[in-house]
């Protein structure tokens, strides 16, 4: 299969829009023929990525988040772009999965899930300002 349909969404960077973004992933995923389990993973990783952009990228500032989703062969690629400060995921500590929960620090779970549930996760600075998160999940689209 060649490149198929593409789906774009641009929304205000607000936690109130997370549900709308998940609905966009569901809608686009359904039209691309994404399997239910892969769609669950994509919904999760996009929600986590956008949450990070809103809370840690923009913080108190206003801004927008642009999403682009497309399928090619059996893979889904999603790009999330913002105009927030440059983000370096390597500075985020991994969650300590082998520690008693009481002693386990909060945080780090979003980036961990994004890396765990995608085949590729790149965090790229956009020249001139902002970030692009490029997520690829292979084997996501069911054969027709």
């Amino acid at each position, binding site marked *: 299969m060649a490149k198929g349909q593409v789906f774009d969404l641009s929304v205000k960077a607000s*936690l*109130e*829009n*997370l*549900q709308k973004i*998940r609905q966009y992933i569901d809608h686009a995923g359904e039209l691309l023929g994404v399997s239910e*389990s892969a769609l*669950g993973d994509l*919904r*999760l990783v996009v*929600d*986590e990525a956008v*949450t990070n952009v*809103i*809370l840690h990228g923009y913080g108190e500032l206003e801004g927008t988040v642009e999403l682009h989703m497309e399928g090619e062969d059996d893979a889904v690629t999603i790009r999330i772009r913002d105009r927030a400060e440059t983000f370096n995921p390597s500075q985020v500590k991994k*969650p300590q*999965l*082998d*520690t*008693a*929960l*009481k*002693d*386990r620090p*909060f*945080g780090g*779970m*979003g980036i*961990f*899930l994004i890396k*765990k*549930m995608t085949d590729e996760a790149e965090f790229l600075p956009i020249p001139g300002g902002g970030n692009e998160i490029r997520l690829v999940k292979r084997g996501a689209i069911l054969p027709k």
Partner: protein
Amino acid sequence: MGTLNIMVGQAQGNVPVTILRVEGDIDAATHKSLQDKAAEVVEGGATHILLDLGAVNYMGSAGFRAIHAMTNMLSDEASSELSKSPYLKLLNPTEAVARVIKTLGFDVYLDIYQDRDEAVGSF
């Protein structure tokens, strides 16, 4: 914006059990309401909570932050071992939520039940 409905119920196991039944998506916009409701019932005297996730279609890491906070509210200071909480247990998560629970390693800390009576009886 998504909203979270949280219903509070009571049941009797070996100890009184407070059941929190959550309906909706638990994300960064809504997780605080779960945390606040849990704090409210703990302040009201709840010591053992069964968190019913049967009507939660989506739960991201924010939901796990709320669960993490709930275990801290309920646990005694002395317990720092890598063991399951006797105070907080989960009921009936969907397949997608269960997968995230496992990926984040929360199944090490929390018992997960499919049957309400069995869950209540385990406290």
